[in-house]
């Protein structure tokens, strides 16, 4: 376990450095947007990891309810925390990118809005955990939120998309063809962040299970 941890730590650092190189040196400069477009690689990678992390919380919330194994609860909690960190990065990098390109910091675009709602759902999840003393209840209630919250995401997305198509969309997202080297840089950023996620998960789950053991020591002797 220690070895794996060390390997992941080093791999994450190297990959992120390489990812920076890919984004800033390897990928060509976008003709219209210029340098600010570079944020795109990390923006997309963070979004991907955030969604993946919440998916992990969802899966381990179900597993916890079925198996009652508290390791699953630790994993669900850790993943939600790391997920919300990446979700925050998405919500910060988005406006930084949007401001020079679209002329506004914020737009109620379906993806952006859904990500914001997602952030609030998991902020609630983390707060809830802080406000329940009994480990058992905390895990069960949090699992309920972890499951319901994730199932809610596509419904939120569709409702917001329909809402935005009824009203004319002020800003259309510039999509379409991505230069192959840009695509490579983006995929590389996703890889780097995935490894970073794994490294952080390993540490965070370890902290969670140590905290649980300390709680147990206090309880059994007190």
């Amino acid at each position, binding site marked *: 376990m220690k070895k794996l941890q060390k390997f992941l730590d080093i791999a994450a650092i190297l990959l992120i450095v390489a990812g920076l190189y890919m984004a800033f040196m390897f990928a060509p400069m976008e003709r219209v947007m210029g340098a600010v477009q570079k944020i795109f690689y990390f923006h997309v990678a963070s979004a991907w990891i955030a969604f993946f992390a919440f998916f992990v919380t969802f899966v381990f919330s179900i597993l916890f309810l079925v198996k*009652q194994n*508290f390791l699953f609860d630790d994993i669900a909690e850790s993943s939600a925390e790391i997920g919300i960190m990446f979700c925050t990065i998405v919500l910060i990098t988005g406006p930084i990118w949007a401001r020079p390109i679209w002329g506004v910091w914020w737009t109620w675009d379906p993806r952006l809005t859904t990500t914001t709602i997602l952030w609030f759902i998991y902020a609630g999840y983390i707060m809830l955990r802080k406000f329940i003393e*009994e*480990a*058992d209840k905390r*895990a069960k209630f949090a699992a309920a939120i972890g499951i319901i919250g994730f199932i809610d995401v596509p419904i939120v997305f569709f409702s917001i998309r329909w809402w935005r198509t009824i009203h004319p969309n002020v800003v259309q997202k510039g999509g379409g063809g991505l230069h192959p080297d840009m695509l490579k840089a983006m995929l590389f950023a996703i890889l780097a962040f995935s490894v970073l996620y794994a490294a952080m998960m390993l540490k965070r789950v370890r902290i969670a299970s140590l905290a*649980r*053991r300390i*709680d*147990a020591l206090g*309880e*059994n002797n007190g």
Partner: protein
Amino acid sequence: MSETLVEFKKVNKKYGHIHALRDVSVSLNKGEFVSVFGPNGAGKSTFLKLLCTMTPPTSGQILYENTPLNKLQDSFRSRFGVISHLPFLYSELTALENLRFYARMYDVQNIDERIKVLLEKVELYKRRNDKVRGYSRGMLQRLSITRALLHDPEIVVLDEPYTGLDTHASDILTRILMELFGEQKTIVMVTHNMKQGYDAASRLAIIKGGQLVFNEEKAKISVQEFDERYIEAVSR
């Protein structure tokens, strides 16, 4: 001999890393009155919760008349009557309305007749149309006994029933418990009160640190001996 009603086989209950019950094996026979003693946080309440199917064990098995817990129907819970230190009553409703509601939940027949008999037993019939909110602690507990016995349960489970009771209510409780014992009901009571617990019981048990450290028929042990065992168990 007497038939086994409930059997715990190496039952463990963990809350996270907290080990509330460790390898508890015990069987409960029909018609017994078991008093369970032990220090705070020893696992007594957890034991009761497991017993009345409120929570499943982490490992081990609990058999009810040789049927494992997970094979039981919801209707099996009607065989338990639970009296806790919480009243389990709605303060804005009258005694009668509270009892009628719980009677419906338990599918009791001849509801009004049954309620009348029980309320007279606990001397609350005259107050039946009063809101529970105005009841004293003793009256609440008497009503809560009525509530627990509405459906004529076979197994009566009591968690610290004497806490905060005046002598009158406590006398009524003792009288009702003795009556139930006489009717061959099975009674399990967790208590701090050594005297009341010892006097009423037919079997004595001590739980300490999640383990069942003592479990013996009362006939086999004198008050003094049991006192010593209890102090020994608790101080260790």
